[in-house]
């Protein structure tokens, strides 16, 4: 395993080499963290503008409305509204959640948890961040164009996203930005896959890796295979827009040749469905670990969990058609996709059972990472189960493109992934910065996030079932939705509350990172035995002075026969017989 020699390099000295073009996976991880937090704030503000418009159409946005939309006295105009939900989706998926879960947690955790000194391709890693940066600049830059940014939805279905529906340069920049982002995340993914395969510490077999690494590794595999598929679709669409090809043009719009807009949907969702799992797998992995650590028990059915995560990874590649039921594919395809989608519930049920098995007869500590991990179990339970409605083709005839879908995917992608990201951040924070975040604030942050979060997304599913469809500037044009005004206002208030709650996190984060004379964190504050907790906090730039030799699994906690009153053992120690 450790057949790659890992040298200890000198620590970088200048600000430039230490913080800007760093090759150190930990610094790159932190760069992705700040990047993700910045875009979370941008995307979150957009979400609030959207929510305001849905609850109070035609009413000026409070406080900063006049500043943002001086021409309309602070009211969000319809074209801006389309731009907002397009950019909200794009930013949250590609520029907030992906950087935090894979960019930040992937970079930070992989070498530390497998006992490596760095990623196997440090230069590629650094390039991956700077490509992401270029891509982010392009996307934000597109907001300043005269015709504005892309406004065809984050799925950018042609023919709306061709010159026919989006004449501005914004859509082209959107395509190029996402293409660059794809290059960046593919670089990262290739790096992660290879690092996990080649740099695991001697003795660490695949079934001795922490489940976090399983999640990140499977994510990287999906990412490396399927993000290039999106890249192909984006390039073809760019050709349609810039060079006059007609890959996706049909009907009256196709003046020459004959393309097919549905082709893009296939390409998009071949990528798009695995993308959902690209986002959620790291969260599942780290939740599996954190539940074990804070229940002071080995992860229940470790192998089954790892295998069911792998099974879901494989299944996720063959279910994408459930996003396209209303395009009326052949019945054979439709029913195959429905059946395959349903099958995902079996491995999901298995790892859910294992999660609860981990809690069973544990000795549970409710530190902030654990609270967030339990939160993930709760919201993903809801998000996963509501997927069953949408997987069923006949129910989807009614629910497709309604707020039910929006509620469902926010439960899985926004709620679960975000809570998972917070769990990971609070958990590894001492190893990142050598300081502990304020635990009391973290707990307040949890409850202040969790309660409104359910208000928002449960509310969305309710209005969806009542028939409210998506992407409406003013839903109350429709009479059957008049009765939904109070529910929409409730959702909006919940969203504002959840948005405000994030300032608790930001305050906690900035206070801990930047205040002077903050007490240093111990090397192993949570008393767990994975490799990263055996080195000092914060981790030195070379991580491990000696490459560790792994002798037991990652969650050896609660063994009654452990010596000197400890209730956990390090992975480098010989397994104590129970």
């Amino acid at each position, binding site marked *: 395993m450790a057949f790659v020699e890992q040298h200890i390099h000198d620590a970088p000295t200048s600000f430039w080499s230490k913080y800007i073009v760093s090759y150190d996976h930990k610094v790159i991880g932190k760069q992705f963290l700040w990047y993700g937090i910045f875009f979370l704030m941008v995307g979150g503000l957009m979400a609030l503008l959207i929510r305001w418009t849905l609850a109070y*159409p*035609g009413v000026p946005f409070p406080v900063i409305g006049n500043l943002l939309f001086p021409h*309309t006295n602070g*009211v969000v105009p*319809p074209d801006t*509204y*389309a731009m907002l939900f397009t950019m909200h989706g794009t930013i949250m998926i590609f520029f907030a959640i992906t950087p935090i879960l894979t960019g930040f947690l992937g970079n930070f955790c992989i070498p530390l948890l497998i006992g490596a000194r760095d990623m196997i391709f440090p230069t590629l890693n650094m390039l991956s961040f700077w490509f992401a940066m270029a891509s982010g600049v392009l996307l934000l830059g597109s907001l300043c164009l005269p015709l504005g940014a892309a406004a*065809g*939805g984050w799925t950018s*279905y042609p023919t*709306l996203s061709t010159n*026919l*529906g989006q004449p501005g340069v914004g859509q082209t920049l959107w395509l190029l930005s996402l293409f660059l982002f794809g290059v960046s995340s593919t670089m990262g993914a290739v790096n992660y896959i290879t690092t996990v395969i080649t740099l695991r510490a001697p003795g660490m077999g695949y079934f001795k890796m922490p489940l976090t690494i399983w999640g990140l590794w499977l994510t990287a595999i999906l990412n490396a295979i399927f993000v290039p598929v999106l890249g192909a679709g984006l390039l073809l669409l760019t050709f349609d827009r810039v060079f006059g090809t007609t890959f996706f043009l*049909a*009907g009256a719009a*196709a003046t020459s040749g004959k393309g097919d807009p549905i082709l893009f949907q296939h390409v998009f969702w071949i990528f798009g469905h695995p993308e959902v799992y690209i986002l959620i797998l790291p969260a599942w992995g780290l939740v599996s670990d954190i539940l074990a650590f804070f229940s*002071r*028990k*080995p992860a229940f059915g470790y192998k*089954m969990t790892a295998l069911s995560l792998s099974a879901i990874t494989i299944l996720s590649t063959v279910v994408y058609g459930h996003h396209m039921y*209303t*395009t*009326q594919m052949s019945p054979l395809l*439709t*029913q195959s996709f*429905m*059946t395959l989608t349903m*099958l995902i519930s*079996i491995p999901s*049920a298995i790892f859910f*059972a*294992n999660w*609860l*098995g981990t809690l069973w007869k*544990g*000795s*549970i500590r409710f530190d902030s990472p654990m609270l967030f991990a*339990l939160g993930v179990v709760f919201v993903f*339970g809801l998000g996963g*189960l509501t997927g*069953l409605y949408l997987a*069923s083709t*006949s*129910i989807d*005839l*009614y629910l497709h*493109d309604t707020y039910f879908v929006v509620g469902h995917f926010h439960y899985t992608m926004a709620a679960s992934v975000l809570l998972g990201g917070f769990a990971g951040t609070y958990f590894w924070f001492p190893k990142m910065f050598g300081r502990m975040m304020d635990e009391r604030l973290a707990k307040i942050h949890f409850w202040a996030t969790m309660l409104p979060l359910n208000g928002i997304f449960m509310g969305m599913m309710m209005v969806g*079932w*009542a028939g409210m469809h998506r*992407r*409406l*500037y*003013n839903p*109350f044009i429709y009479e*059957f939705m008049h009765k939904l*005004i109070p529910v929409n206002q409730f959702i909006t208030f919940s969203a504002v509350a959840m948005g405000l709650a994030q300032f608790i996190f930001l305050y906690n984060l900035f206070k801990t990172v930047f205040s002077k004379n903050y007490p240093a964190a111990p090397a192993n504050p949570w008393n767990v035995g994975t490799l990263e907790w055996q080195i000092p906090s914060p981790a030195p730039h070379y991580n491990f002075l000696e490459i560790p030799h792994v002798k037991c699994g990652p969650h050896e*906690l609660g063994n*009654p026969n452990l010596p000197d009153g400890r*209730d956990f053992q390090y992975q480098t120690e010989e397994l104590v017989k*129970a």
Partner: protein
Amino acid sequence: MDISFSERLIGMIATGTELIVKAEESMGFWQRISPPEDISSTGHLIEWLFFYTTYVNIFWFALVCFGIFGFSFLYSKKRHAKPLYTHGNEKKHLLLTAAIGLGVFLSVDMVITKVSTRDLKEVFWNFPENDPDTIKVQVLAQQWAWNFRHAGKDGEFNTADDVVELNNLVVPVGKKVMIQMTSKDVIHAFYLPNARIKADAIPGRFAKLWFDTNKTGKFEIACAEMCGNHHYLMKAQLTVLSAEDYERWTNESQERAIATNDTENMDLRWGWQWGSK
């Protein structure tokens, strides 16, 4: 920004306030979040499966909640200081996990897939095309309006006696309505919440769907697929008339169509041969 736009916005604010006042009318919570009235003979199939799924989900989610909250209570550090040392990989553990997986498979996957497939095969995909009683309508979606074409007296589409309506689909009550649909520009979706159905209108393709009605009145048809900045304004009306009213409407609009149709104007001839691909 031009004045008309600001004026429109002010108008919208007024409408908004008016709507909110209307919505204040007392209404039970469940009624508020129920779907619009079902006017079809097929909508209850979707509701049945929805509620079946809900009940099974409540069962499984209750188990999850029992695990989260129950175990958190029973096995907190205070109450349960000594954790049980188990890797959960004994035979009984694996059997229990497998049983849960199987339980989900049987209670959820099998039933939903089976019922859904049956409904699709027997109802939603069982198009009444060969039924002579079916009302056939061609739909052309465009940014941001719906065009509806009835064949007229001759039963042939794309002829001078076709009745074409903008944003108003007129059908007789109790009859099956079969729609063939395409789009002029971008992808739209025909969404009739009162019958719980939806299908995409895609440029270069024909989509088809059918529904029936059991109630006269005016209902709303929406575009469900994002189709541009004014997607939200792409609303049409479904007018369901009694048999006599429909007969009268057909005759009147037939005469009007024959009198006013400009046979030279090719733009009016957007229809197609029924069933042609």
